[in-house]
């Protein structure tokens, strides 16, 4: 305010001055004290000037002049000054105005400030309340967001939980699938617990079954893939995927087939083993759980239902799993052509393996393994046909090369010592065992599944001795059902002797006279081999044939489904042998058909029709495997056979015949084993075959017959011949040491034949007096006397045959009729001669004719 006033005041004064100026002019200005300052200033300057210009001598005049001059100056200055003031007045005024404005502005600002301050204070007071509210809200917000976060976490946790559940189930699933190949009770319990916690017992069981199915498939696939070779190189897995399992099976090379089969069986075994234990686990579990109360809770009912479901499922699963396994094995078996197995042992090995597998199958689900049996049957028939074909050819070769020398067998030789028959020892045992086992087949404890722990399998021991050669030749039981006790030791080895079944033992005792049992005939060079009185006469081929029998029986044993086919083949071997021996040694006598029994003749004819290739068709025609016909064997030593010096190869003949008997004998011995091996429905065939064998045995002596046929009826000559025969025979006996039985039989035959010759001779006598007839009797008595000296055969067989015939000459008509009716042993020729030339002499024509007719009738009756 004062500033403003001051300024205003100043402004007023200026206005006044202006006015005054304009009135007074320059004087007034000079008078105003306002300019005194200015005067002072100039005065100072003047003073300086004065100091300089001031002359030393002051004169008024100068001073005057100066003063005027100064006045003048002053006047102009003042004038100038007022001019300036005037000139600047407006600016001054403007400026002043502006100052005033400024002052006003300032005042206004002041007011504003004051009100601002006031408001500020006010607002300050108001602000703190709102702030708190905001803060509160903020905090709330924070809390909420925290909560939200928690919610998120919870949500994640929830998701995780679900995920974990899934993972868990997956894991459980994986664990389950692992159970398939290796059962572990603890793991399985854990898994089951887990599933029951999840409440998914039933689903788990379904899952488990799926796992088993796929485990079987996958395992089989990878096993076979591992053994497939393409162009000598192992197949890459990716490549293998392209093929079906069946195709893969076909690609398994024959050299690796067995290995592959073992591997597959083993893997399958593990799976089945595991399945078995799963079942067992569930059964055990059920046993442990107490029975339901009378008022069961819903949960209990549910639980019980689950368990029943699981057990049911598992039970049906057995068959399914086994079916799957069978299919896999079947495809593998079919993948290979069995007939291309060169070695019999290989087949045996496969059969044993399959049998074992079937045994496992039977134990597993009581299945008879039809699929597998069919497969193995088809495949082994394939093999067997070619095998049999080859054996027959081999037999023919042996026969053709046979020299019918006695093959010296050691004392105590027993066919069961032959490597080919070893299997029988264990086989009989098994048979006995299986008889007792059949009742308790499915009872839980004594099954094979209990015998092996998780890491073992019934196929293990096979792998250890991988050379199939050993299978038949060693005493190891690996070939037959392995009986492994807890320590894993094989049982047979220790008590070998005790295990030999009685019927075999019997045989040992009979033939082992005091010497140590020479099972492996480790004889070394025993120079003084003794032959017992009842030692067998055997040719090399006979041994071979017996070995073949052994092999065939082994096949029968290993392969009961085709046992019958094999048996037939076995009989063919025997038939062929019999036929060969017959055709070699007694073909000459075949014309004299009446000397052979009709049954034997029929048998020989049957053999010839069925088995012998007609000589024209042979060679050029390629022989198919199904064709069992064999070429007619060619005799290798025709020459010796007709050499009278060796009594027409008597030795050979005897040996050959004896060997047939030996064979038949041994077959008889094997009968018991054979019977156990073939199905009972086929037994009649066996007995039929045996009756044929016996027949053959009884008739097999035909060969010696013709030795005597050429001899004259004259007694001395006959006796001489007998002497020669006897001497030769005895020397022969010294060399070969034939059984006394043979010796007797030979004599028997010889004498009978001689008797026949007598009758022949007598009947041929056209005219004969009573004296002549007496001579005949005398001759015959002489002959008998001599004979009794030579031979030990008592009584002389069929001496009545001759005596009766001679005596018949004396009979009357009625008597002769009766005699003819009762004595059918004479041929019609003998009888008619008797009637015509002997008795006829005292009969008339009519009577003769009547009797002749009677003879004819009898003859007809004989034929029909």
């Amino acid at each position, binding site marked *: 305010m004062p500033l403003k006033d001051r300024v205003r005041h100043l402004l007023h004064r200026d206005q006044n001055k202006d006015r005054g100026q304009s009135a007074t002019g320059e004087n007034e200005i000079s008078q105003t004290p306002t300019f005194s300052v200015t005067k002072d200033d100039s005065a100072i300057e003047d003073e300086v000037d004065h100091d300089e210009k001031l002359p030393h001598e002051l004169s008024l005049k100068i001073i005057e002049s100066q003063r005027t001059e100064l006045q003048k100056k002053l006047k102009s200055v003042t004038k100038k000054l007022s001019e300036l003031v005037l000139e600047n007045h407006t600016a001054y005024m403007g400026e002043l105005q502006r100052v005033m404005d400024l002052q006003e502005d300032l005042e206004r600002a002041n007011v504003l400030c004051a009100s601002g301050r006031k408001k500020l204070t006010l607002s300050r007071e108001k602000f703190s309340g709102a702030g708190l509210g905001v803060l509160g809200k903020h905090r709330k917000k924070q809390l909420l967001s925290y909560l939200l976060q928690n919610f998120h976490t919870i949500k994640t946790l929830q998701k995780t939980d679900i995920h974990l559940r899934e993972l868990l189930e997956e894991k459980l699933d994986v664990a389950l699938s692992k159970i398939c190949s290796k059962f572990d009770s603890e793991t399985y319990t854990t898994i089951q617990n887990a599933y029951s916690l999840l409440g998914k017992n039933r689903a788990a069981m379904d899952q488990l079954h799926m796992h088993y199915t796929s485990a079987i498939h996958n395992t089989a696939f990878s096993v076979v893939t591992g053994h497939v070779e393409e162009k000598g190189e192992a197949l890459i897995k990716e490549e293998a995927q392209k093929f079906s399992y069946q195709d893969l099976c076909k690609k398994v090379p024959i050299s690796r087939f067995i290995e592959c089969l073992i591997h597959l069986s083993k893997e399958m075994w593990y799976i089945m083993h595991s399945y078995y234990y799963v079942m067992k686990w569930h059964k055990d579990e059920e046993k442990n759980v107490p029975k339901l109360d009378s008022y069961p809770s819903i949960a209990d009912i549910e639980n019980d239902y689950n368990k029943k479901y699981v057990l049911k499922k598992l039970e049906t699963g057995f068959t399914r799993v086994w079916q799957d396994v069978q299919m896999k094995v079947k495809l593998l078996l079919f993948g290979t052509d069995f007939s291309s197995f060169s*070695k019999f042992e290989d087949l045996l090995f496969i059969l044993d393996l399959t049998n074992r597998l079937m045994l496992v199958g039977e134990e597993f689900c009581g299945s008879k393994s039809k699929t597998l049996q069919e497969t193995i049957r088809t495949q082994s028939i394939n093999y067997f046909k*070619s095998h049999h*074909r*080859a054996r027959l*050819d*081999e037999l023919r*070769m*042996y026969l053709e*090369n*046979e*020299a*019918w*020398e*006695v*093959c*010296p*067998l050691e004392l105590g030789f027993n066919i069961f010592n032959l*490597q080919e028959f070893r299997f029988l020892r264990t086989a009989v045992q098994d048979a006995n065992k299986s008889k007792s086992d059949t009742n308790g087949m499915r009872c839980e404890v004594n099954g094979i599944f209990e015998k092996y722990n998780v890491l073992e399998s019934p196929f293990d021991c096979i792998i250890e001795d991988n*050379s199939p*050669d*050993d299978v038949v*030749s*060693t005493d190891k039981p690996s070939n037959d059902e392995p009986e492994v006790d807890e320590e894993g030791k094989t049982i047979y080895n220790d008590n070998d002797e005790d295990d030999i079944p009685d019927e075999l033992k019997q045989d040992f005792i009979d033939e082992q006279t005091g010497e140590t049992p020479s099972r*492996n*005939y*480790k*004889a*070394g*060079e*025993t*120079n003084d*081999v003794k032959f017992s009185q009842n030692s067998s006469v055997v*040719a*090399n081929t006979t*041994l*071979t044939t017996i070995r073949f029998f052994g092999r065939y029986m082994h096949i029968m044993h290993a392969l009961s489904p085709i046992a019958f086919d094999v048996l037939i083949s076995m009989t063919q071997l025997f038939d062929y042998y019999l036929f060969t021996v017959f055709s070699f040694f007694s073909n000459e006598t075949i014309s004299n058909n009446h000397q052979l029994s009709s049954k034997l003749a029929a048998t020989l004819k049957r053999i010839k029709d069925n088995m012998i290739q007609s000589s024209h068709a042979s060679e050029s025609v*390629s*022989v*198919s*495997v199904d064709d069992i016909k064999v070429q007619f064997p060619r005799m*290798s030593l*025709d*020459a010796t056979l007709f050499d009278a010096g060796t009594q027409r190869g008597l030795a050979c003949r005897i040996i050959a015949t004896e060997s047939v008997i030996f064979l038949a004998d041994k077959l008889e011995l094997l009968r018991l084993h054979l019977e156990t091996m073939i199905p009972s429905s086929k037994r009649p065939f066996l007995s039929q075959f045996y009756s044929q064998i016996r027949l053959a045995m009884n008739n097999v002596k035909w060969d010696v017959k013709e030795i005597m046929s050429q001899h004259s009826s004259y007694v001395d000559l006959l006796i001489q011949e007998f002497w020669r025969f006897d001497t030769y025979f005895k020397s022969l006996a010294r060399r070969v040491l034939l059984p006394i039985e043979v010796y007797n039989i030979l004599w028997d035959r010889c004498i009978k034949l001689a008797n026949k010759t007598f009758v022949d001779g007598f009947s041929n006598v056209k005219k004969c007096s009573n004296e002549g007839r007496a001579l005949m009797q005398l001759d015959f008595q002489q002959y008998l006397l001599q004979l009794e000296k030579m031979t030990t055969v008592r009584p002389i067989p069929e001496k009545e045959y001759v005596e009766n015939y001679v005596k018949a000459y004396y009979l009357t008509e009625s008597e002769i009729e009766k005699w003819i009716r009762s004595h059918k042993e004479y041929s019609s020729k003998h009888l008619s001669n008797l009637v015509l030339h002997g008795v006829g002499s005292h009969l008339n024509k009519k009577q003769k004719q009547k009797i002749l007719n009677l003879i004819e009738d009898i003859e007809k009756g004989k034929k029909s």
Partner: protein
Amino acid sequence: MASESYDFLLKFLIIGSAGTGKSCLLHQFIENKFKQDSSHTIGVEFGSKVINCSNKTVKLQIWDTAGQERFRSVTKSYYRGAAGALLVYDISNRDSYNALGAWLTDARTLASPQIVIILIGNKKDLESEREVTFLEASRFAQENELMFLETSALSGENVEEAFLRCSKNILTRIESGELNPDRVGSGIQYGDGTIRKLSSNKPEVSSSDGNCGC
């Protein structure tokens, strides 16, 4: 088997003292495997194998005889008509070597004087127990016009070679006409007709036919 085709069928013998490894040689030859648990052969056993030799397919019919004395009478009957023979001794057993002379005589008289024989010193793997040197055996072989090889049925060394060499020798002799397959008891048979024609052009066909009854 029936479908097998071959150009020649040769009958072979394996002879020699007991325990020299004859059966093992045969087993090794046929199965390419050593027979671990071999026991003494009873009588005669048999094996056959088809081999390729001088561009021909040859089927060998091999008769493996028992070495033990008591089987002599049986085994001798198989000598007849053998085309080739492996005469085996055991290099670790002097006695088996000393017996060679007798075996050789047997073979030449019973089989045929023309029989092609290869001398085999078996058990070559038992070097440390050797009782017969290579040199003296090969001298023996030279003196008796035999081929000679040392073999090991255990390792299979020279086993196939032995059979091959013997077969080759026989085939060469057939080609040169020295051996005539048409002769009865030659131990050689034709596998198919074409070859028969080829070699029957040779001059010595008509040596001895029919019953030669030996």
